[in-house]
């Protein structure tokens, strides 16, 4: 680890070969959950009704808890002395490996639930596969997380039906959210050299193969919710897995990391 604090194991912004694919891979899984969990926590005290405020905080807690265990494992794999806190609070935007979808701002409740549904449907498929991988520790974390995310999916799926097939206003907002977020969904199913590089650890999840199953589920809910799926024939956004993020992540991290960075090592 250099004095500047940047890890040589992180590819940074250039598409250079990744030195430690397993570390990168774990950051991707963990950062999806950390960033989405933090986003959801922004609703705390602002939910439209008390039950939803509690639900969003509960889902946030699950995601942040999943991230903590995954980052702890990532820190050990990296072997540079970074623990989960160091990875969560002391990395810069360009070192985050989450998909762009999860860093998108909460918007209205329809936007938040649509983002959650698109992610949950992906997550239960992905984690379901990961739970069977040959890396025992990662498989165990995935097997635990898939149970939690399945519970989330039921909730977000029910909200898609309620919002889409609800009032004119709720339908319009859910459709608008789907239209805005759709371009961030193809990135979830990208398969690159990092996915290939972890094959030696017994991890062989074919993300591309998950997409048809995801489309089936999302399409079914959209149909029942009287929502129309946006076209894939539009510019799709990508870059999060390599540290190239939308403008929103930096702002979110400044909020999330300020206390830890202002008071290094503080405990309370």
């Amino acid at each position: 680890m250099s004095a500047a604090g940047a890890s040589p194991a992180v590819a940074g912004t250039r598409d250079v070969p990744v030195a430690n694919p397993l570390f990168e891979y774990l950051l991707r899984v963990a950062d999806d959950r950390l960033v989405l969990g933090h986003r959801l926590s922004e609703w705390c005290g602002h939910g439209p009704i008390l039950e939803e405020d509690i639900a969003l905080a509960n889902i946030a807690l699950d995601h942040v808890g999943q991230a903590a265990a995954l980052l702890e494992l990532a820190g050990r794999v990296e072997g540079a002395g970074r623990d989960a806190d160091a990875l969560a609070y002391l990395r810069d935007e360009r070192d985050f490996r989450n998909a762009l979808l999860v860093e998108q701002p909460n918007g209205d409740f329809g936007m938040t639930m649509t983002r959650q549904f698109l992610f949950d449907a992906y997550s239960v498929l992905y984690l379901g596969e990961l739970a069977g991988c040959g890396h025992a520790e990662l498989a165990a974390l995935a097997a635990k997380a898939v149970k939690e995310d399945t519970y989330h999916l039921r909730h977000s799926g029910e909200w898609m039906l309620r919002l889409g097939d609800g009032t004119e206003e709720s339908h319009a907002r859910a459709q608008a959210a789907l239209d805005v977020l759709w371009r961030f969904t193809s990135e979830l199913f990208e398969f690159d050299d990092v996915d290939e590089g972890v094959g030696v650890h017994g991890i062989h999840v074919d993300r591309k193969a998950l997409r048809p199953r995801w489309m089936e589920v999302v399409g079914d809910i959209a149909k029942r919710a009287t929502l129309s799926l946006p076209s894939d024939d539009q510019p799709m956004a990508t870059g999060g897995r390599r540290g190239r993020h939308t403008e929103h992540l930096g702002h979110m991290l400044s909020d999330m990391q300020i206390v830890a960075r202002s008071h290094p090592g503080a405990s309370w």
Partner: protein
Amino acid sequence: MTTAPLTREEVLHILDQVKDPEIPVISVVELGVVRDVAIGPDRVKITITPTYSGCPAIQMMQDDMRAALVARGVEQVEFEVVYAPAWTSDWIPADARERMRGSGIAPPGSVREGRAAEPLAVLTRRPAAPVACPYCGSDETEVRSPFGSTACKALHFCNACRQPFEEFKAT
């Protein structure tokens, strides 16, 4: 330490007196958080597994377990966190479930019977059967919120005795 080390059974008995801080009628052993105990000359190692990934009570449980063993002369208490096999509410024994019910929390149903093999089935499956009210036993209940006051509970309402109650989620 001058006295003889505690046996494994003695340690488990002590831990069985440590209650879940959020559901104080059941112990951390009954909850299934304690997976194993290993005894060294002056130390005890406890293997634990979290209920939910983000459950904030796990730290308090560790503090309480440590305090209970230190009070009995154990010098060093270590914890090892394991994730496999994933925690399930099926591990909670029958008598602990009855104590849960007695304190106004509907105990979890059986996961093994209720879970579909395909996680995506949650989107199409019919709603689960109503949870019996822990106060009056009626099935005339409805879910008010699938998420409750803690990560492990959901909120229900009984239309027969007109009372809200919590359910320990089956997972």
